[in-house]
């Protein structure tokens, strides 16, 4: 065993073998892979649920399942995708793996807490699974709106506890990241030399830390209501159900920025590498991340325009919502300007990133339709919202996740995958995605409500098309993962820097050794300086 052996060969703590070298490890890279394993499990599960929902909706009336099953399925699809996949996916997997390396550290600040977060995630998963089998799966939707979540007979309490525990896990990860970035940057790395992915995780971590406790207490209150019938949200006992919605969205709107900010960080890393050009507006991207984190915390009530609010409140929240669009647009402009006159190298991660920019822009712009108080009344709670949300979360964060998988796969596993299959998969996913969600925009404007089990015959064509798109999408995703997993048959011979990246993770071997850096990392004045890369890599020599 030498210092340059990869972390796969060097268990930490030393001396453990097999499964134990994983289950009690405090190495941030192993914990990241354990996250990858369980998060993918849930992702596949929730994908199948989503496909079943869309299959049910492909024709009028009952297609494959009853109404109660359908309600349970869309609830679980939402709960799993949000709390078990999108929120932890990029921070817990790629953040854990890369954040310490990007700032030249050998681990996160609290390694034990990091492992505890993983176990909390598992505990939350167990609660989520148990709600399936005991007392009937929950049927409230992932928003758990009162009064229904208090009065329904299904096992909502277990799901609420799952979300509570998962919130704690995500909060502790955020706490760990903030402390790590403050205290463990390698000597000589100043704040404006931190790579943008780490910056985005820093902004995310603050939102995780400051928003999650509000959700925790809100979910606990619903559990208390179910147990003790206190009446805090029960209008017949003096409570106000609307206050639940306020408290819920005070977390859950910032939570969508927990979901999207790390994705934006991924894209900010990938675009400059394959444009062979310094990122346009480094400081603007940093500032916009922080601006999104702050402004995004002040817009929660735009989910409630039809719930009953004063006109002044509607106006203020609508205005604030429009303001959040500005920092998001700054990022999109920066990415595009980075590519302008760059020497672009097409690779699978870049293709996914381009998909991200396009789909996220559509998602963001349709968000303005929803954020404007007038048009919101028309499309509120219709399929338009479903389409918007999935464009941002799936077309945004989901595509960023796929891009990150392809970008850092050789770094994490030391193996390169087949490019041709990856391109085919990426194209299928994008086309399937557009076919799947575009009809929902039109259905929404026509008035098709979300979450309904059945609909009028005039909506059938759109739903049928969406279903077909869904099957193309799923096939593409399956092909993508098969391609990635097939890389395990290849030799472990990926270069330390297969792409020509400039941040610190590309200066260490693939996969990295246990202590990340064999010799002290060398800090460049500016993290995105490609002058050496341009000399070393001739155009078109990435294979």
């Amino acid at each position: 065993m030498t210092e340059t052996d990869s972390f796969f060969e060097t268990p930490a703590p030393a001396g453990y073998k097999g499964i134990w070298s994983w289950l009690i490890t405090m190495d941030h890279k192993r914990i990241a892979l354990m996250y990858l394993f369980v998060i993918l499990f849930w992702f596949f599960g929730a994908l199948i649920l989503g496909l079943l929902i869309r299959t049910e909706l492909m024709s009028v009336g009952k297609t494959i399942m009853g109404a109660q099953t359908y309600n349970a399925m869309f609830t679980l699809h939402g709960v799993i995708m949000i709390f078990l996949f999108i929120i932890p996916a990029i921070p817990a997997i790629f953040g854990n793996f890369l954040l310490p390396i990007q700032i030249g550290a050998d681990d996160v600040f609290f390694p034990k807490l990091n492992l505890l977060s993983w176990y909390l995630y598992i505990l939350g998963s167990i609660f989520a699974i148990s709600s399936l089998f005991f007392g009937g799966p929950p049927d409230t939707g992932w928003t758990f709106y009162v009064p229904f979540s208090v009065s329904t007979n299904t096992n909502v309490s277990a799901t609420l506890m799952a979300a509570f525990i998962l919130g704690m896990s995500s909060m502790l990860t955020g706490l760990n990241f903030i402390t790590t970035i403050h205290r463990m940057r390698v000597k000589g790395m100043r704040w404006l030399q931190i790579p943008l992915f780490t910056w985005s995780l820093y902004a995310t971590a603050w939102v995780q830390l400051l928003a999650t406790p509000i959700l925790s207490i809100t979910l606990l209150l619903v559990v208390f209501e179910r147990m003790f019938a206190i009446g805090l949200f029960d209008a017949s006992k003096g409570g106000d159900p609307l206050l639940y919605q306020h408290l819920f969205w005070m977390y859950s709107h910032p939570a969508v920025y927990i979901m999207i900010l790390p994705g934006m960080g991924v894209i900010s890393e990938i675009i400059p590498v394959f444009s062979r050009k310094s990122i346009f507006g480094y400081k603007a991207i940093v500032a916009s991340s922080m601006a999104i984190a702050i402004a995004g915390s002040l817009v929660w009530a735009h989910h409630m325009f039809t719930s009953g609010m004063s006109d002044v409140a509607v106006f203020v929240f609508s205005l604030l919502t429009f303001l959040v669009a500005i920092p998001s647009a700054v990022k999109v402009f920066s990415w595009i300007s980075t590519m302008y006159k760059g020497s672009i190298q097409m690779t699978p991660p870049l293709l996914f990133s381009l998909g991200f920019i396009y789909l996220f822009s559509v998602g963001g712009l349709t968000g303005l339709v929803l954020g404007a108080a007038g048009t919101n009344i028309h499309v509120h709670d219709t399929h338009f919202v479903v389409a918007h949300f999935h464009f941002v979360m799936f077309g945004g964060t989901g595509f960023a996740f796929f891009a990150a998988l392809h970008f850092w796969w050789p770094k994490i596993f030391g193996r390169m995958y087949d490019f041709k299959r990856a391109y085919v998969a990426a194209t299928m996913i994008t086309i399937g995605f557009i076919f799947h969600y575009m009809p929902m925009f039109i259905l929404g404007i026509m008035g098709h409500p979300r979450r309904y089990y059945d609909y009028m015959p005039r909506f059938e064509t759109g739903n049928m098309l969406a279903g077909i798109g869904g099957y193309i999408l799923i096939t593409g995703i399956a092909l993508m993962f098969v391609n990635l997993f097939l890389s395990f048959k290849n030799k472990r011979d990926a270069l330390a820097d297969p792409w020509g990246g400039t941040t610190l993770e590309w200066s260490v071997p693939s996969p990295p050794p246990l202590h990340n850096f064999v010799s002290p990392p060398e800090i460049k004045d500016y993290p995105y300086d490609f002058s050496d890369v341009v000399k070393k890599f001739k155009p078109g020599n990435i294979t």
Partner: protein
Amino acid sequence: MKTTHSDTKGSRLGMWLFLYTEILLFTGLFILYAAYLKKYPIDFIEGGKELSLFFGAVNTVILLISSFAVAASVTAIRKQSAKLSAGLIAAAVMIGGVFLFNKYIEWGQKIHHGIYPNAPDLVNGPPGKNIFFGLYYVITGLHGLHIIIGMILLCVCVFMILTNRIHEGNDGVLENCGLYWHLVDIIWIFIFPLLYLIV
């Protein structure tokens, strides 16, 4: 080795971040309190009159004394008197026990008078009063839970001082547990006027 860095400034930063999350947890309840106070000001004042100012005041003083003991114990360990430090922490734990005992009596009296969640008297009475006592039970209950957690942490500290794992030069754990105890204290400082001094 990677796990043995001793950056007390860093671990204190982590603790402070954690304390923010605890404050925000209670903030959710305080928001509810504010919204309902605006809706039912008269009922809230009536509810506040029914709470025992005596118990509330005694518990406030008790918690302040225990916080002093915890703060003093950190100073004691820095002056190398481990026994004094452990004694002060143990005293703080016991005072915390007295707080819980008082709370138990107070809750017991209320329940005896038919004031408890979903009690017929409350549900059929004025809605604001039901909300006031609903919040009373949730807020003081959650705070009591934090007292218990704090007491467990302090017990761990006593044990670690006696086995010489906390000593002069390595008092980070004691200081962080102490911070937690002060947090529980300061949250009570907000709860006391909101519930007892509203009149």
